[in-house]
């Protein structure tokens, strides 16, 4: 009897928690559940920085320009055309007319201005959006549908930035209605989907925007009425959720699962390469023994990336050779095979700078002890597994690898600031290699190789000022060459998101940035 009562109570609680659906009784709305793999601290594209927020908010916002997924070229978005002044300091955008925000207000130049004002206001505490704006120096509204963005110095990645969801245009009336912090629960853009609700750490619900007809050419009319996003932070639960029908689409399936389920006819696996930096270890050039170029090169020759990629990533990731992945703009093929695995070469290099194992304990000697490397290792991604294999591979060369685990980003950054490390694993994503500057320019905020070279500084600074693709291509080719000549990083693998969908889903496609799906093109198979 007591048990019966207890179970009834449980059922009641259970039902109460699950009744969030908003079903349209007149017709059967099509609805899918999309599994996100991380619960980010926020979903405001102007304030927060995660890729997860973009997976959702890419559907809610339009941007001034878009990149065509087939060739990566810029195409019209909310701006129908644009012009860049000869001094490269003024970008003038002609805006599309007849566009409405989800809250019913009209889109115009004032809205673009309001979004820019919000991002640059210090109280917004913007992270990514503000960084993407680079040398932004204000705007000028020329007429209701023309706006000019001014720069203090030429900044060629601006269009690339403006095509990203972090600079999506928000409704000024909605922005005025809510505080900076609260806006994220009531976001209003012009995109193909409207935000219905966001419950932190639990779910988001988007609903099709029936008025949407101003999308870029590669957006089809949306077919799915409702998209619910849920969080599957534990990797082991992801495939289970897909298999049990809890979700229709989910990202970042563990590689081992993807391998064993490859023949499964109920699911489709879509490995999607993400441009940006590869999984890499930045080498500290100011700390013994990695202050020696020959030593750094020995490390690179002694790294069996193919073995790591095959074992941990089950062959789903391409091997990485340089500071940016092969699908990033201006990638330089010359870096490939530069440091192909060659342990004989690695040993020879170590011997050439005088390292010997005199006490014959398996490790090279240094000042009466063993030669040691200190590696800062974050616990996310597959970094622990990769680091462990590196420890073994470099151990074979006679180098003792000491691993310092850091549980979170703040700890990582304060450890890096102390400076007494040899390697640290870290990487970011992006299509335009402008991200290289903060890592490899002398006073860059993430110059964790602590490397300083006037030529590299000059090349990288110049590369974000030049507009002409041919010029940029040459500059970045040179930069990649210098970075690998000086062996500043140990690149391991290019990032691949193992997206998986149920067999009912068709047409799933991702934009050139890799993370963000075009949900308008998704169809349910009948």
């Amino acid at each position: 009897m007591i048990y019966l009562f207890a179970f009834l109570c449980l059922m009641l609680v259970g039902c109460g928690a699950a009744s969030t659906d908003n079903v349209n009784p007149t017709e059967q709305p099509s609805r899918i559940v999309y599994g996100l793999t991380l619960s980010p601290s926020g979903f405001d594209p102007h304030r927060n920085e995660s890729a997860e927020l973009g997976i959702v908010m890419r559907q809610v916002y339009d941007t001034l320009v878009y990149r065509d997924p087939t060739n990566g070229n810029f195409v019209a978005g909310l701006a129908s055309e644009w012009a860049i002044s000869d001094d490269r300091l003024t970008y003038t955008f002609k805006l599309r007319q007849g566009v409405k925000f989800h809250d019913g207000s009209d889109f115009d130049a004032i809205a673009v201005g309001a979004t820019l004002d919000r991002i640059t206001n210090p109280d917004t505490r913007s992270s990514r959006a503000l960084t993407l704006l680079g040398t932004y120096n204000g705007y000028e509204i020329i007429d209701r549908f023309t706006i000019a963005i001014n720069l203090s110095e030429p900044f060629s990645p601006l269009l690339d930035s403006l095509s990203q969801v972090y600079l999506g245009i928000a409704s000024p009336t909605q922005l005025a209605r809510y505080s900076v912090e609260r806006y994220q629960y009531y976001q209003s853009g012009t995109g193909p989907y409207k935000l219905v609700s966001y419950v932190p750490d639990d779910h988001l619900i988007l609903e099709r925007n029936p008025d949407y007809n101003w999308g870029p050419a590669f957006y089809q009319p949306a077919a799915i009425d409702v998209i619910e996003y849920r969080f599957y932070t534990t990797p082991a639960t992801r495939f289970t959720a897909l298999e049990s029908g809890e979700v229709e689409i989910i990202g970042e399936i563990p590689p081992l699962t993807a391998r064993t389920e490859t023949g499964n006819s109920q699911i489709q696996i879509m490995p999607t390469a993400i441009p940006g930096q590869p999984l890499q270890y930045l080498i500290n050039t100011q700390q013994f023994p990695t202050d020696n170029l020959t030593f750094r090169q020995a490390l690179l020759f002694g790294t069996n990336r193919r073995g790591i990629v095959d074992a941990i990533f089950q062959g789903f990731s391409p091997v990485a050779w340089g500071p940016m992945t092969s699908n990033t703009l201006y990638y330089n093929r010359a870096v490939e095979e530069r440091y192909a695995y060659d342990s004989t070469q690695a040993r020879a290099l170590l011997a050439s700078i005088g390292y010997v194992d005199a006490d014959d304990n398996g490790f090279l000697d240094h000042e009466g002890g063993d030669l040691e490397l200190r590696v800062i290792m974050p616990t996310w991604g597959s970094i622990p597994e990769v680091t462990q294999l590196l420890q073994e591979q470099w151990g074979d060369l006679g180098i003792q690898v000491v691993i310092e685990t850091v549980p979170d980003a703040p700890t990582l950054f304060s450890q890096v600031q102390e400076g007494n490390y040899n390697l640290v694993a870290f990487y970011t994503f992006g299509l335009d290699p402008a991200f290289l500057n903060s890592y490899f320019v002398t006073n860059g905020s993430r110059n964790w190789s602590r490397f300083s070279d006037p030529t590299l500084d000059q090349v990288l600074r110049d590369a974000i000022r030049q507009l002409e693709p041919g010029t940029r291509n040459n500059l970045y080719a040179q930069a990649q060459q210098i970075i690998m000549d000086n062996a500043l990083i140990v690149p391991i693998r290019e990032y691949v998101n193992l997206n998986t969908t149920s067999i009912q889903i068709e047409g799933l496609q991702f934009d050139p940035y890799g993370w963000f799906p075009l949900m308008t093109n998704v169809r349910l198979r009948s």
Partner: protein
Amino acid sequence: MKWLLLVLILIAPIFAPYDPMTTHLSEIVKPPSVAHPMGTDHLGRDVWSRWLYGGQHTLIMTALATLIGVGFGTLGGLVTRYEAFAALWEGLMALPGLLLSLVLLTLLGASSLTIAIAVGIAQIAPTAIYTRNIIKQIKIMAFVEGTIAIGASEWWVMTRTILPNAWPSLRVYAVNTFGYCLLNSAALAFLGFTGQPGLPDWGVMMAEGNLILREAIWVSLAPGIAITVLLWLVYPKER
């Protein structure tokens, strides 16, 4: 029987056929076979060898954590004669132990030793409160009042009368704490605090195994069953 088992776990590594840390990239997630009686894990390591080594590591580290928790906790319980100190323990007790360990590990960095310390420290407050209550109960017994009445020194009363009488309860309590420490350090592994990567430890093996449950359930089963059986045997039986 119980002691025999503990000794067996401690000397188990001598039976391990392979090195527990060495990876074999061509042998990834192989099911149990003659060569690998418990199969291999996601890095091709022999689960049987890791399991044998893991027991030793787990046992030593849990014992250390228990020693820290019960040792300092008992001391703390002995010295807290004043209510103000008792409030201090009560306050510590109210903090979720997991949070305390989590913060300590973020601060100290996760290694086997710091995990044992962090887990042990979280047990100090409960032990102190328990000790204090036991002492209170013993103190009101007639024979203790008697010793005080005949003018024995406080130290003498504490060491000769109270402690011997508290000892049986404290011993049972320590065994229980051993169980909590084992479960808590495994819980921390589950939250990602695993110490030096690759080190064989039952808690860490279980956390790693949980990630590949679908492909290699044996990796998680071996340490999970081991922990359960160990605690089953070690916990005091109510009779």
